[in-house]
């Protein structure tokens, strides 16, 4: 009897010609995730457009230009007659920076006067500027060391390794976090939609009727399928993005998937709470958007949480996304020590329980209120029609 009611309610909620629900539950989160992955498909920064001002007409200047042209990271788009032209090109966004090979470069270098080569970068694009300046420095230093001390190797060589992301690809760095952030937002929006559309469409009595009058059955039928669907999508999209990095072991996969499940539960629970508090889909969606959309900026993957002000760190702590990203990043390091992941997991479990219990309580009250309202409205309509008859 209870199971019948449950299945019937699920059918009515999820298969009642509700295209918008399937759009926001399946099509948009998966579509946006794959779109984001595709955006970073080139993985590393290459062919950054730069300019060059050659004031020195010498063999050394030609050699430096040739070396810069052969770098895969750089693309010399402009050879400017003067600095002003290159600067305007930077302002227009045509190039990211420019190098000036100054007058008498070769002569002064051969006389050991150490002429300085100025490199001007726009500074307005963090990633490309970082790669550009690093590459220009490396190319020019290598050329410099060949001039007088070609036979003498540098005593110290440095190798930088990015643990868990061996190729240091931008996709590895960012996309795993971005995809999780998309589902963090999706869970809130879907939570709001599923619980608020019966209120919007005045169908609370009808839904309660399918659930055999049980508010618990209605709540379970509302939240269970969406959480499972969103969780499976999250795990699938995450695994798809992770294919470029070192494969996860079974333990790591289980911990990551569990963390994602609790994140989905916590976020959909928060969405339910917004509906319980406002009672209006538009307002609850707005609240979910205000909190969920910028969550990635606060979660510490692009800009570290430790460098944020205290109040912002508190807000970041309240976001489930912060803790999932911590677990995901710990799993990138391999099986060094899984114990730290459990601290974040406990917080996620706590959040999932808190938001769901609060959401269930608030929705129970809302359903009661809306069912009463619908009954009063029906009575009024009946009385009016009888009076008019």
């Amino acid at each position, binding site marked *: 009897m209870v199971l019948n009611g449950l299945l019937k309610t699920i059918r009515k909620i999820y298969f009642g010609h509700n295209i918008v629900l399937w759009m926001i539950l399946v099509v948009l989160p998966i579509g946006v995730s794959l779109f984001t992955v595709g955006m970073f498909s080139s993985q590393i920064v290459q062919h950054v457009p730069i300019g060059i001002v050659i004031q020195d007409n010498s063999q050394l200047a030609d050699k430096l230009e040739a070396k810069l042209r052969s770098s895969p990271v750089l693309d010399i788009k402009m050879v400017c007659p003067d600095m002003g032209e290159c600067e305007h090109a930077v302002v227009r966004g045509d190039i990211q920076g420019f190098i000036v090979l100054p007058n008498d470069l070769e002569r002064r270098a051969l006389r050991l006067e150490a002429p300085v*080569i100025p490199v001007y*970068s726009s500074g*307005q694009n963090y990633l490309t500027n970082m790669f550009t300046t690093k590459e220009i420095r490396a190319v020019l230093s290598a050329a410099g060391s060949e001039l007088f001390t070609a036979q003498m190797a540098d005593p*110290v060589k440095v190798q*930088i390794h990015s643990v868990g992301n061996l190729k240091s690809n931008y996709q590895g760095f960012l996309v795993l976090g971005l995809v999780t952030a998309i589902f963090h937002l999706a869970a809130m929006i879907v939570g709001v939609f599923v619980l608020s559309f019966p209120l919007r469409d005045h169908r609370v009595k009808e839904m309660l009727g399918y659930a055999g009058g049980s508010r618990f059955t209605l709540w379970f039928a509302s939240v269970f399928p969406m959480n499972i669907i969103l969780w499976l999508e999250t795990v699938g999209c995450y695994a798809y993005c992770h294919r470029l990095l070192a494969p996860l072991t079974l333990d790591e996969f289980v911990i990551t998937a569990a963390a994602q499940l609790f994140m989905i539960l916590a976020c959909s629970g928060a969405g339910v709470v917004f509906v319980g508090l406002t009672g209006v889909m538009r307002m609850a969606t*707005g609240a979910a958007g205000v909190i969920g959309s910028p969550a990635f900026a606060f979660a510490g993957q692009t800009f570290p949480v430790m460098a944020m002000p205290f109040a912002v760190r508190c807000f*970041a702590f309240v976001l489930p996304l912060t803790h999932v990203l911590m677990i995901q990043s710990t799993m990138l390091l391999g099986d060094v020590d899984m114990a730290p992941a459990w601290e974040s997991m406990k917080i996620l479990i706590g959040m999932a329980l808190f938001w769901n219990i609060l959401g269930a309580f608030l929705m129970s009250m809302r359903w009661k209120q809306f069912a009463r309202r619908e009954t009063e409205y029906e009575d009024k309509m009946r009385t009016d029609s009888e009076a008019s008859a």
Partner: protein
Amino acid sequence: MIRRLWKVAFAEWKLIYTDPAAVLLLVVAGLIYAFYYPVPYVYQTVSKVPVAVVDLDNTAMSRELVRMASAAQQIEVKAIYPEMKQAETAMARDEIYGFMVIPENMEKNIRGKHQTTVNIFTHGAYVMFHGAIGTAFSTCALTIGATNKVKQIAMSKQVPSTKAIAMRDPFPVSIQTLYNSTGGYANYVVPSVLVVILQQSLIIGICVLGGSRAHRRFRKKLRDSPVENESLPYRYFGRSLAYFVHYCSFILFYHCIVYNIFDFPRRGELLPMVVFSVVFLASVINFGMVVSQMFLRRESSMQLFLYMSIPVLFLANFSWPAYLMPSWMTAISYILPSTFAVPAWLSIEQMGADIYDVAPKLYQLAIQAVVYLVLGLVLTRARDKAKIDIGDM
């Protein structure tokens, strides 16, 4: 004529301020996000990142390297470990975000004129830590190497140390940052995000208010009201005027107040800023008018555009270059005003571009505005002719 336009515009403002969802999107979001987004990045740069050193050499030179690393501004050496396993465990516990391994026999190798390799490990999940830790540690290690190389050159070539320095590095590189001299993360990310916030909130706001609607439920209620029954051009342009004036005040607010509070570079000249505001808002408003005709329920636009916020941000070219994206994605990005507006805004406001520098991007925004205007008028007319019971708005 002007009076009729203003009458519609005033009616629209009244509607905005009497609809809580519209207030949230068109007033509160623009104000809150202006402070909400920059606050995490208020310290601009990452400093004192906790790191460790694994000293397998344990000599005077390795201790000198540790002392140099401790003095670096970007990092803070939290521990010195005798073996790598301890450093790996500390990194897994988020106690440190990177470590440097000083190899065994480093001093012996350097003194014996053999090359030695210093390995630096950073946490693969954090791009900013990777940059800060890598730069700090490699600068220290390369300085040790450079000092020893200068000594070797001086001794082998019998030259004074100044000449030996010049022989090691005959043409030093000096890197100058033109428009973000502090290298601040907020200076880089927030101005672009502010443009995207203006666009997204305006589009969703227009959709929530039904654009130049013919399908809203209240039109049934207000079908006798003169504004709702105004002819199409007056209705369309009057409402556009309301949004335009409303969002001009936001641009002014960002330029005069938000930029001042957070100390972002403010080099915008009056003429390019005015032209930018006109073409950008015209493009976004007309785009919103077009999109609003496609939704049967007002909140559907919120659900769609909230999902779109992340791709829209990355398609705007400021974070990931467009030439590295697949060409079909670049083509899609031309639909959005932010693709041209973000670079134009950065050129004007951050770099002080004049009108000629940004003209190509402003032309593209103007073309978008015209195309969306025509589409908006056509779709509104189609809506006007449709039955009033379409949707439930």
